[in-house]
């Protein structure tokens, strides 16, 4: 018998396969209906070839106030949908399993890991990505503080930290430095920019968020 090519630590089914087989996605597909479209499907982005799982369905997301519709398989995560299907690449794919925070986006104002949510589940919700913080030459005060205090080196984790910090100040404009730090505890930086992040967040706390 040929052996499975899966390394043993990857169980016979992947996380995505698992999710696609659970009620979560089944419910989502039932709700939308396989092959049905929500709003105007972008035919150009439709997948030509169906895969083994449920067929691609239309998925409409509201990203930074803009509605975008793509055809995706139900197993596609919000992160992959943004990065691979919508070319929204501010949220980064680093661990792809909810441990590092590089993919943090705000969902109806709440910071979430975009890698741990299916794109279909994010429909109808307001998704904010880091790109929204630099529009028409206007830089939001949180990324501005990151830049001013050099709270970034390679910068690959930075958009995630920025979104986590923005979510924190959005909820509580009077957050203390210790409270802001707790909001950043779900994010990892490898270059080690925490000291500069502290400078940045203290300056923002002094300004009242």
């Amino acid at each position: 018998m040929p052996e499975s090519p899966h390394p043993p630590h990857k169980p016979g089914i992947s996380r995505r396969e698992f999710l696609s087989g659970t009620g979560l996605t089944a419910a989502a597909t039932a709700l939308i209906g396989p092959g049905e479209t929500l709003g105007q499907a972008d035919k150009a982005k439709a997948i030509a070839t169906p895969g083994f799982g449920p067929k691609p369905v239309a998925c409409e997301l509201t990203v930074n106030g803009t509605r975008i519709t793509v055809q995706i398989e139900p197993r596609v995560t919000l992160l992959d949908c943004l990065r691979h299907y919508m070319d929204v690449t501010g949220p980064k794919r680093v661990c792809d399993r909810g441990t590092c925070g590089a993919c943090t986006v705000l969902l109806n104002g709440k910071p979430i890991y975009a890698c741990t949510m299916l794109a279909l589940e994010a429909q109808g919700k307001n998704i904010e990505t880091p790109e929204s913080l630099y529009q028409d030459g206007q830089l939001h005060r949180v990324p501005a503080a990151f830049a001013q205090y050099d709270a970034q080196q390679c910068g690959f984790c930075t958009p995630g930290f920025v979104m986590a910090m923005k979510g924190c100040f959005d909820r509580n404009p009077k957050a203390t430095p210790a409270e802001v730090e707790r909001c950043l505890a779900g994010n990892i930086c490898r270059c080690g920019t925490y000291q500069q992040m502290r400078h940045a967040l203290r300056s923002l706390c002094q300004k009242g968020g």
Partner: protein
Amino acid sequence: MAEIKWPAKRRVIGTRVPRLDGPDKATGRARYSQDINRPGMLHAVILRSPYAHCRIKSLDLSEAEKAPGVRAIVTVGQLNYTGGRKEGKPGWAFPVNKTDVGRELFYHGDEILAIAADTEEHARDALRLVKIEYEQLPFIVKESTALQKRNAPSTVPGKDASNVIPGGNRTQGDPDAAKKAAEVLVTGTYGVPVITHCCLETHGLVAEWENPKSLVIWCTTQAVPGTAGQLQGFLAGHGITASVRCITHYMGGGFGSKFGPDIQGQLAAVLAWLAKAPVKLFLDRDEEHLAAGNRPSATATVTIAGNRDGTITLFEATSHGTPGIGRSAGVNIGILPYVYEVANVRISTEIVRLNHGAARAMRAPAHPQNCFITESAVDDFANAAGLDPMEVRLKNLPPNDPNAIKTQPTSFLALRQTIYATEIGIAAELSQWKKKWHPPGKGPTKGPWKHGIGMALHTWGGAGRADNDVFVTIHSDGSVLVQCSTQDLGTGERTVLAIVVAEVLGLEPKELTVIIGESQIGRSTGSGGSTTTPGTAPAALVAAINARDELFRKIAPKLGTQPESLAIEAGKITDKASGKSYTWRQACARLGMESVRGQGNWQPGLSNLGVGGVQVAEVWVDTETGVVRLERIVAVQDCGMVVNKLGCESQVAGGVIMGINLAMFEEMIVDEQTGRMVNPDFEFYKLGGILDMPEIIVHMHDMPERGVIGIGEPPTISTAAAIGNAICNALGVRVPRTPFSPDRVLAALQSKT
């Protein structure tokens, strides 16, 4: 031509300049290689060995080839195949039963093949349809096992008889006599495990053939022209003559692990060739841990002998470390006894090759390990002699070399004792060492918590390198373009170039446009050994001066003066002859339809090499739970002339944090039963978060007279050693191995009773 020197009075250099690309990076607008999406782009994934050592018995791709969306498959065997390969008939023209069946795989994660499909989901589906049989072979994944079975046949690639190979021996003076004469003699065993680089942007690239003669890659690499050249060489080896252009505008960390296209680069280039479409291939987090490099472990049994006054007379070490299936480990006889010069030395090292991924250079290769080994032992010696370890270090500092003082007065050899002594003094002040140091185990307590303070020294090279071309173009509208093919690993390289050019042209850094990370711009060297700033900053100075002089030549006649009469002040150009002055834009407007360009390469006299560095750690240790809480780290660091103080401070604090991770959290754990890494993730391979971090006090010891020296690597070297020494100072007992996890702290406490 007059000798080029750094300006004596510096307006921009040495100040705190926020990085130019900060806003773009912080808002996700900066496009990293992993963010590149091209029209019609395919996604590729790699199949890897599930075993630590095996042979491919059979391989059947027929089902995978037919899977939905699959556009191309290529195997590593095909890439490597040389039998019968000839011009125009590349290895991948041969079937896999010829190229891959029988091929040996040497570690969990060893590459087998890659599949490109229209979506990543389809590529992963297809990977599961590959029918492959393996013959499992003996493997060794623990150093202790390999050392016990040193006569067993080798399980790693190459022709060595055994997994254990000699790493070299060195003897100096008369170690036996020194041991006999010793007033104080201590022996201890110290070690650090294998850790991985954990670049947050995983290794990989997007590969796109513009035409059969031209390949473009957006690759996350710390050697932009080097990576293009390596891939070009690989293709030429397969009879494909093509130019390769590498683009790396932004990269998400490298730390020494990203110097070439690697196998995934070759796979992507071939998949794109076969599928006639752009291919994106980036590793997953687990693949990054398994196959994208790691730092060798080091374990050493060290004996130090000396006098009661603290003079060290003997340093003896027996050490070993593993580079995985690689051949070069971090324990290095050339580097022990690290920063010290000892009269009598005996060192022997062994390299233990294991069935896990190969080591690669990692931030200050070999130094953190050898620093940890040496500085732990020096501290134990000080403790045994009943002396303040700071005094012992001051007593044993390497002297300033009298010859070097005469011939090269700004060299590290001429200055090292002075640099260390000065920095130790600064660190003592900033850490309140005199007040806070106490004999081991005799410090303040708060309930079960005990206080400790410890220190360590380090050194690094950081020399400039030739073959770095910088181009400065001044346009008639006053805009300035700075170009270099070099890369920014996160060090702020764009901003470094802008600072130097702005200094010369009287402008502000943010007024310049800097383009880096494109191989076609010119020559640049890989970012290894902390050489990028000392390699490119001098080149930028030369280029800016050449551009400025060319500008003066062009506009002087139009201003009715001589080029020699023109000079630059902040924001303006003055004519000494007439006393007139012009704004930068007014002056540049005289170029009319022209623009001027200055070229510069690195030249000697503007950079230097060799730095010191002192770090002090202060900790509290819970003797009931074994938890270590870091209170404060003081880092005093020199790097010759500071170019960007803000960037330098960032590098030092970041280096300290990487050292904290080594000390407290990181360890690659490979299971002896299965031969598999059990923590290829971020749940069980720990990196500290912001709440784990102590206060970090950074002091830059600026020495402008020495020229520019690299800063990236040195500040990460001594942190783990300083923390280990602080824990020992708290407990009165040494925790000999990192990470200093609660179980190890408790085990050490238990061993004391």
